[in-house]
């Protein structure tokens, strides 16, 4: 073996890419799905398919405010999300340790909509940023993996620097499997390099205090020195409750809402948060490019304006801009789809890299335990994870809608199927038939994905079936597309 720059970088790319890739495939797949977390939550609440959007009335807001205050007096850390074009309904939510769950209300009458209890798309959000492993260790692992991605991208660029333009034009899908995988890996890597670097970099900076706990604090560009407590994607905090917290709100919310709209603009208020006798009318994340959580604070008892909180300067806005770039809550639907496709391509590119790693080492190390373990883990993240995601959707429609701890059962089905796929992968890999393991999981995914549309049609109201493309059909068709792709891969794997 010679020792030159390309070989050293190749070794670095190979090992950092493989170890980090096992986590990054999960992060990218879950992140892509989390882009449509609101839409997935709506798909997973089929009762909402009968609901027709209506504008929010003051009376409805006040009534929902009273309900939220009652819940808070019973000890729930409730807050209100206001209707948006993506989710045109009022929700009272609380954090259950992993997801924001709660009840839905019609924005015109405050009449409750009986929806099933589900974590919805937020499972993928949690999986994306902390691997469902808690805010400390889970976040830290994804942080380290993000740095690993930056190292792998850097080393990959050095390896292919001489032929970077020819690689852009080179894709031989019908050449040998190694060649085809390598071409696809390089092509996707080069084309989506800016996206992947941007996502890894902004993602790492957003959660930086997890990796550097000694430097935690007000780094996100959020105004004030305290972290918001019940915001849509922040962590659960255990602040001591006071009597002021527990007292039902005396002041109606509608005047506060209108006052906040006068300051921040019509249609910009997305969250109503309650904290220590104060009500915060907070700007929706989708209201501007930078997520700054500007808000107006009111007294909960008499509704007087206490203060207006905005990001004071450019430095404070910088953190919000990074969040805006990463989460793209401000973006129109086409851009969201572009992010989704880029994320999936990134995930496929990394999966290709994992497969290439195994191909390279198979000849020399095929019989070794560590190689079999690596193969098992690769199968588990490349085909097992999509299978688990699909099982989550199936479980949502098949489990009784009024069963207790329903959202927890759905999550257990998700992890149960994933564990099953790991066991299946280990069985196939350690018995020397790993290709069959991949093949069977691909086939299973294809079969259940193609059957999702009939399941959807059978388990929800068909009133709006001919009303054009809605969120239900969009999810069904996307899953059918992915299922078709899995079937094609299955056919390709089946050929000798």
């Amino acid at each position, binding site marked *: *073996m010679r020792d030159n720059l390309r070989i050293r970088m190749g070794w670095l790319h190979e090992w950092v890419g493989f170890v980090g890739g096992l986590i990054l495939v999960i992060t990218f797949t879950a992140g892509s799905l989390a882009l449509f977390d609101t839409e997935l939550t709506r798909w997973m609440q089929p009762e909402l398919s009968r609901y027709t959007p209506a504008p929010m009335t003051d009376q409805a807001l006040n009534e929902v405010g009273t309900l939220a205050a009652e819940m808070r007096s019973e000890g729930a850390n409730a807050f209100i999300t206001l209707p948006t074009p993506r989710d045109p309904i009022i929700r009272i939510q609380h954090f259950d340790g992993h997801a924001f769950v709660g009840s839905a209300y019609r924005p015109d009458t405050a009449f409750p909509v009986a929806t099933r209890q589900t974590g919805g798309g937020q499972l993928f959000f949690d999986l994306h940023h902390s691997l469902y492993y808690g805010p400390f260790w889970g976040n830290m692992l994804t942080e380290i993996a993000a740095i690993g991605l930056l190292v792998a991208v*850097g080393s990959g660029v050095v390896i292919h620097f001489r032929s970077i333009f020819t690689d852009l034009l080179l894709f031989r899908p019908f050449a040998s499997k190694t060649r085809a995988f390598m071409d696809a890996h390089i092509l996707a890597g080069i084309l989506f390099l800016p996206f992947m670097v941007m996502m890894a970099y902004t993602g790492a900076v957003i959660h930086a205090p997890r990796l550097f706990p000694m430097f935690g604090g007000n780094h996100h560009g959020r105004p004030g020195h305290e972290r918001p407590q019940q915001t849509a994607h922040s962590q659960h905090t255990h602040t001591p409750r006071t009597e002021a917290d527990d007292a039902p709100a005396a002041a109606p919310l509608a005047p506060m809402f209108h006052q906040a709209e006068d300051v921040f603009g019509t249609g910009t208020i997305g969250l109503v948060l309650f904290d220590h006798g104060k009500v915060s009318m907070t700007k929706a994340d989708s209201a501007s490019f930078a997520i700054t959580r500007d808000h107006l604070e009111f007294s909960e008892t008499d509704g007087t304006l206490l203060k207006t909180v905005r990001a004071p300067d450019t430095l404070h806005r910088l953190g919000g801009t990074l969040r805006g770039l990463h989460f793209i809550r401000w973006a129109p639907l086409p851009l969201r789809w572009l992010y989704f496709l880029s994320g999936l391509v990134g995930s496929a590119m990394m999966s290709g890299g994992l497969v290439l790693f195994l191909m390279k080492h198979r000849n020399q190390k095929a019989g070794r335990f560590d190689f079999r373990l690596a193969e098992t883990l690769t199968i588990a993240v490349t085909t097992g994870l999509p299978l688990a995601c699909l099982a989550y959707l199936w479980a949502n429609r098949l489990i009784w809608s009024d069963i207790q701890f329903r959202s927890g059962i759905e999550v257990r089905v998700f992890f149960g199927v994933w564990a099953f796929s790991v066991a299946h992968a280990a069985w196939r890999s350690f018995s020397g038939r790993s290709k069959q393991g991949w093949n069977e999981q691909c086939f299973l995914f294809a079969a259940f994905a193609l059957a999702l549309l009939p399941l959807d049609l059978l388990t929800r109201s068909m009133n709006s079936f001919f009303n054009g493309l809605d969120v239900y059909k969009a999810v069904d068709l996307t899953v059918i597309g992915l299922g078709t792709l899995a079937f094609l891969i299955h056919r390709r794997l089946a050929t000798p």
Partner: protein
Amino acid sequence: MRKSISYKKGDSFARVWTLRLILGAGASYALAMGVLSLFRHFGSEAMLVVGFLCAFALMPGIVLVLFCFPSQRAHGRTTGRSLKTLAIVPLAAILSIAGVQ
């Protein structure tokens, strides 16, 4: 079975590179902490976000720079001494943090 010279050499390279990766990761973390301390000391809490941006650009950069150096000297021995020298980097960073604080 006898292993070829190339195989054994490959093994030795892998050991050196693994050590380099581990030390590089440690060094980059310590240096990032140094950078963040500087930002907090000379700037404000709000400046930390710029510090994080610099730290996350620096960390992969350091690992890549470390892998730019050859692991073999002219007469063929792996550079164990240069790896030991590398351990000075985190020490310097820790001293700089201590100095700043």
